[in-house]
C-alpha cells in the first residue's frame, strides 16, 4: 500500500511538472516532447488503477504514434511565427485562460462534489479483471468477433486507398 502511494506521488509529480513545462516552453518541439513524458506518467497512473490495457494503449497510440506524427509536422512546419500570432491577437490569450478555468471548474466539481459510483470499487475492478488485456481480448474474439473482422477490412481498404491516392505516376 505504501509503495502504491509513493508511486502515485512520484508519477503525479512528474505529470504536473511535465504539463507545466509543456505550456511554458517557447519551442513547440520541446513542448511536444514534454507532452510525451506527461503521457508516460499518465500511463503509470493507469497501471496503478489496474487498467493495464489503457496504460499500454496510452503509450503505444498516444505517446508512440500520434505524438511522433505531431513532432514530424512541427519539424516540417515553420513554427517561429507562433509568438507573433500571440502578440498580435491578445484576445486569444484570454479565450485560452477562460477555457482553462472552465475545464478546471469541471474537474473540481467531479472530484469534490459528484459522488463516485459505489458499484465499481477498485476491488471489484480487480476481481473481474476488467482492465486486463486478456478480458478485452476474450470479448473481442467472442461477442465482437464480427466487428473485429470487419475493422480489419476497413484498415485494408483505407491502406489501399491511401496508396492509390499517393501514387506518383499515372500510366
Amino acid at each position, binding site marked *: 500500500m505504501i509503495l502504491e502511494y509513493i508511486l502515485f506521488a512520484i508519477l503525479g509529480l512528474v505529470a504536473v511538472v511535465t504539463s507545466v513545462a509543456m505550456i511554458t516552453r517557447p519551442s513547440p518541439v520541446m513542448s511536444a516532447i514534454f507532452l510525451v513524458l506527461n503521457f508516460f506518467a499518465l500511463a503509470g497512473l493507469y497501471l496503478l488503477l489496474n487498467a493495464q490495457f489503457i496504460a499500454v494503449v496510452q503509450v503505444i497510440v498516444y505517446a508512440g504514434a500520434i505524438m511522433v506524427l505531431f513532432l514530424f509536422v512541427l519539424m516540417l512546419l515553420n513554427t517561429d511565427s507562433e509568438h507573433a500570432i500571440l502578440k498580435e491577437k491578445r484576445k486569444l490569450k484570454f479565450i485560452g485562460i477562460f477555457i482553462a478555468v472552465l475545464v478546471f471548474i469541471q474537474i473540481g466539481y467531479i472530484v469534490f462534489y459528484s459522488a463516485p459510483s459505489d458499484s465499481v470499487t477498485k476491488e471489484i475492478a480487480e476481481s473481474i479483471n476488467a482492465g486486463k488485456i486478456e478480458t478485452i481480448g476474450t470479448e473481442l474474439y*467472442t*461477442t*465482437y*468477433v*464480427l*466487428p473485429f*473482422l*470487419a*475493422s480489419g*477490412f*476497413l484498415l*485494408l*481498404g*483505407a491502406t*489501399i*486507398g491511401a*496508396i*492509390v*491516392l499517393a501514387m506518383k505516376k*499515372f*500510366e
Partner: protein
Amino acid sequence: MTANTEIFQLLPHLVIGVGIVLSVVIEISTKKSESILPWFTILIFVFAGAHSIINVYDYQILFGGMYAIGGVTAIFNFIFTIGAAIMVLNAVDYIKKSKMNFGEFYILVQSSVLGMMLMAGARDLFMIFIGLELMSICFYVLAGINRSRMGNTEAALKYFLLGAFATGFIVFGIALIYGTAKSTSIDQIVFAYEYFITDVLFLTGLALFVIGFLFKIAAFPFHMWVPDVYQGAATPVTGLMSTTGKAAAFSVLIIILSAVFTQNITNNFEILFAVIATLSMLYGSIVAIAQDNLKRMLAYSSIAHAGYMTIGLAAGNIESVSGIIFYLTAYAFMNLGAFGVIALIEGSNEENLDINSYSGLNSKSPILAGFMALFMFALAGIPPMAGFFGKYYVFVASIKADLTWLAIVGVFSSAISVYFYLRVVVYMYFKDSTSSIIIKNSFTGLLAVIISGLLVLVFGILPDTLFSIITSVLSY
C-alpha cells in the same frame, strides 16, 4: 450454434472478403491484373448476389444478435452486388480510356460493397458504423481516383469533408443512444423503443443519427455536396455512389426505425421526414430544369428521388418499407443504366456531357438512344418502367398513413421532372446533330447498359416478382 460454424452462414460476405484479399495478391503478382480483376470482381459479385437472393427466405440472426442474414438484408445485398457488377462492367473500358487503369479500382469497389453489405445486415450500432466507414472511405478514394483531373480531386475533397462531418453527427448520435439505452444492440433498442423515445437524450441521439444518414442519402438541406461530387467523380463511380450508396444508407434508416414501421408506434420524425421529402422533391426537380450538364442534372434528380423515398419514411408503415425497397431497386438499375450511357458518350476527357452532345443521337447510335430514352422514361416514372411502380408503392403507402398531401406534392414534383427528363429524349430524337461526336465502341459498356435496361423493364412489367418477395419477407 458456435461462432465457428456461424461464420459459414455469411458465405456472400466471406466470398467478397476473400475476394478482396485475393485481388490484392493478384494485383501484386501479375502485370496483367487490370485485365483479370474486372472479371474476377464481377464473378464474386454475381455469386454473392445470386446466393443472397436464393436464400432470401432463410432469415437468421447470427453472432449473438450482432448480424442478420436473409430477409430484407438479402434483397439489399442483391441490389449492392448486382448494381456493383453492372458498374464494374461499365467501368472496364471507361477506366482504360481515362488513363486510370489500375487494379486497385476494383479492390476499392469490392471493399465498398462489403461495407454496404455489413451495413444492411447489421443489428448493432458498432457494425453499422464500421460498415459505413468501410463504404465511405472507399467512396472518398474512388471519387478522387483520377488525380489528373481537377474536378475529380475537388469532388473527393468535398465528399470527404462533408462525409466526415456527417459521420460526426452519426457518432454523436450513437454515443447518446448508447448512453440512454445502455446497449448498442438494435434489437434491444427496437424492443424498448416506445420506452426510450420519451427520453429527450435518446430522441436527440436518434435525430442526430438520422440526420447523419440524411447526408448520405442526399436529402434536401444536406445535399450541398451532391452536384459537385456527382459531376466531378468518374461517371461509373458516380453511378455506384448514387445508387448503392443511397440504398445502404436507407437500409440503416429502415432498421433503426423498424419499431415505427412494424409496431404501430407514433412516428416522432413524421413531420421532419415529410418536410425534408417535400423540400428535396421540389428543390431537386426545379433546379434540375436549369441544368445543361447531364451528370449535374442527374445529381439534382437524385436529390428529388431521395425525396420520394423519404416520403416512405414519413409514412412509417410496413407498406412504405416495401415501397422504399422496391423504389431503391428500380432506382439503382435505371440510374446505373443512365450513367452507363453517359459514360459511353462523354468521350475520353468528359467533354461531351452537355445536353447538346445528345442531339441527333438516334441517327448515330439507335441502340444507345433507345436505352437512354428508356432510362429517362423510367426516371420520370412513366409506366410500364420500374420507376413508375417505385413511386406508386411509396405514394400508396403515404395515402394509407393519412399523408395524402405528401403524395400530391410527390405527383406534382414528378410532373415537373418529366420536363427535364424528356428534354434529353427530345434532343436525341428530334434535333439534328450539331457536334461531331465519335462514340467509341465498348462491348462491356453496352452490355452493362443492356442488362440494366432489361432489369428496369422486367421490374416494370412484372413488378410483382420482386414486390411479392419483399412483402412476404417483411411479414416476419
